[in-house]
């Protein structure tokens, strides 16, 4: 006997976002279908030093975690500030979206979003320099994410360009 009132069934924290994976093999409709059934979350804005153990501890608060895949710099193969968290059930993932998204891990506000499902290769950053795209272009200084963004680093250190 649920309330049949649309106006009261708001559950906005679990809605899918605007982001769509450009490398997804399939069309937009297929991706959205997967996102709406997924029990996998993308987690962003992590510090490079945040460990799998810390992620486990935090995300276990909304249910049993099946697997964590730490995102890696494609070249260096070191953590580059994101990860995937897979739950056994969708309901547990929804609670993470409601109550863990937008709170802190390692003193940073982390962001969670639905993911269509982990596939080999998706654990790597897609930025030119090997990390995440957002770290290519950002201009602020973030000591937990390698300092300045890559472009800014090059601008600040023109000799560095010659190394390429």
């Amino acid at each position, binding site marked *: 006997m649920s309330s049949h009132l649309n106006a009261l069934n708001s559950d906005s924290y679990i809605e899918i976002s605007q982001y769509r994976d450009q490398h997804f093999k399939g069309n937009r409709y297929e991706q959205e279908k997967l996102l709406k059934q997924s029990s996998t979350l*993308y987690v962003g804005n992590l510090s490079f030093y945040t460990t799998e153990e810390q992620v486990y501890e935090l995300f276990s608060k909304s249910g049993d975690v099946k697997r964590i895949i730490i995102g890696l710099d494609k070249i260096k193969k070191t953590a580059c500030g994101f990860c995937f968290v897979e739950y056994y059930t969708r309901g547990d993932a929804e609670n993470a979206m409601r*109550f863990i998204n937008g709170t802190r891990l390692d003193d940073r506000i982390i962001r969670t979003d639905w993911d269509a499902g982990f596939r080999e290769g998706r654990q790597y950053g897609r930025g030119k320099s090997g990390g995440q795209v957002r770290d290519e272009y950002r201009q602020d200084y973030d000591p937990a994410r390698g300092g300045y963004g890559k472009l800014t680093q090059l601008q600040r250190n023109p000799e560095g360009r010659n190394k390429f």
Partner: protein
Amino acid sequence: MSRRRHADENDGGQPHKRRRTSEPVEIEDRLESLICRVGEKSTSSLESNLEGLAGVLEADLPNYKNKILRILCSVARVLPEKLTIYTTLVGLLNARNYNFGGEFVEAMIRQLKETLKSNFFSEAVYLVRFLCDLVNCHVIAAPSVVALFENFVCVTQEDDVPQVRCDWYVYAVLSSLPWVGKELYEKKDVEMDRLLSQIDGYLKRRQKTHVAMLQIWSAEKPHPQEEYLDCLWAQIQKLKKDRWQERHILRPYVAFDSVLCEALQHNLPPFTPPPHSDSAVYPMPHVIFRMFDYTDAPEGPVMPGSHSVERFVIEENLHCIIRTHWKERKTCAAQLLSYPGKSKIPLNYHIVEVIFGELFQLPCPPHVEVMYTTLLIELCKLQPGSLPQVLAQATEMMYMRLDTMNITCVDRLVNWFSHHLSNFQFRWSWDDWADCLTADPEKPKAKFVREVLEKCMRLSYHQRIVDIVPPSFAPLIPANPLFIYKYEDENSSTLPGYNAAITVGNAIKNRASNEEILTLLKDVPNPNHEDDDDEGESFNPLKIDVFLQTLLSLAAKSFSHSFSALAKFHEVLKTLTESDEGKLHILRVVCDVWKNHPQMISVLVDKMIRTQIVDCVAVANWIFSQDMTHEFTRFYVWEILHSTIRKMNKHVQKIQKELEDSKEKLEKQHQKKDSGDEEDMEEDSQLEEQIERLQEKVESAQSEQKNLFLVIFQRFIMMLTEHLARCETGGTDLNTPWYKNCIERLQQIFLMHHATIQQYMGTLENLLFTAELDHHILAVYQQFCSLQA
């Protein structure tokens, strides 16, 4: 299309705020929206909004009557915090259209019947309250509500029904009186007095064995943890003494009195409570959580007393707001903080008390624990100048009272506090808690701080914890979570198995296969056997030591590394742990090597159960074994046990569901009855075979589940009996910190898995919880039985 995730500026979801400005397409959606939103912040007054809405709805009645009826019935059921707003609306509609009023009342009664039959008892209470408040709006005649109440109270005279059934009907009557007591007494005081006297009689004779199990603190001071019906009764008695003067509830209908008193009233149709059935699941009793009183809010409005009806109404409304908005933390926080009438009460204190009341509720909180942490953080964001201080005050108070706090609640407090701190750079005035350093380290305060620091470390890292506490707290800092390898270096070369360990280690590094490892391990002697002329297949603890210690040491870097290792050598591990002793020993080794890293122990045990290297019973036996005596009061041990029980429960549920799905499929196939077609009959018999197999699987899983609980309870009984006997012969006080921990952990098993354990009560009573048992232990079982009695 931008590839970037949404910006960091906005804080998590709630895009619905943008959606509100766009108009819903259908008229029905518009009606829904108008009705649901009345009473929210507006430039016009509530009265004028209600007046306007009544006009709109009256005009729409010819075409949309059923829809409007449905919407109003729904809001009565799911928006109880706006009760009086909607009763006023119904009152205005009834004044304009008597027939509609009648149809609404009938619809509500139908809905009440349905909710009771479907075990939705909280919602049924809201419906009863709504109907009562309609008396105040001249929609329903007072005498017919009194008649309803008389039927409810009659339930207390029924024979052979669970006490919790009668409890609910009494609660429904008492909890409506703050709204309608005055009117009912004005019209029918003799009948009401008789009713109350019957209720008094019932309350005096009902059993309260359950209270001890449900109290958050066992001490009476500073605030007694009262049984909920006792507290409500005291509040109603006081209200009666005050001649039913109630000033807290917002009553919009008062402004419309001149219009409403012209309206014709309806009588409630006679309502007989549905008879008791075996499928009925009545709400469990609960204890009222109180942590604040009028001495705690230093300035500003005074907190209403614990037996004032205002306290009841405020708490009810705040619980209802959380119940409605728990999924949307920003809305929930905003709604809590905009509680009508907030200027007259110390709202922050009420909110904090209600939230902790839910978090600590026994057996379980109404919502997932992490919700409360995040809600409190949102509240701190919205009231940065006042709420954090109240929260700090509450934390301080709870620390002071740890000695008598139920251990399940202490677990939750540890989890909440450490998670909360991790959002605020772990800033806390630890020095204020220096008293925990001088006491016995097994005492609750020292244990609490130690467990908090350990949880804080899990969310950060060891050095961080060292940095955040004063140097005097060093003894309470958790160990650095480093691996302990038995065969570490040349100093251990004299240990049996040392050479084998080196060989195995090299083999693993050279990507040996499972068979190759098993072959290597064949040469490891068995310390348990005089001669080695067995096949080497039976339990050999040294083999397990050599292999597992080495494997885990190579994989110690992270959880993923360790999981990979377990997966890669699954075959070897299964072989080594074929026997029960093997399973026990593998758990022992995991605990030995990762003694400093309880989190790793938990995840490894979880993985080993899921990959069937060990089974649930092995984990239970391990926890109660001699080796784990010194870990027995650590929180992580109980987290592991409860997680293990939950996995077992989920496993049974999964197979039960598969069985039900197959049965349904067969049903559906039988319904398409058109064939003697061979293919169909083939399918049918395949399905029937599958159902038979699943039936066996279910029975076997349930048997395993029952066995798990038997083992756990048996072990508890043994340990507790030993302790009690020792204390009796030695003449010592039985109430040691260890005993408190143990008996409350036993209670915790019952509380956290009560639904599952109910199924096996017959066996438990016959085999374990017999009359011969020490009464201290039997009392726990009796408390559990009384929860649904």
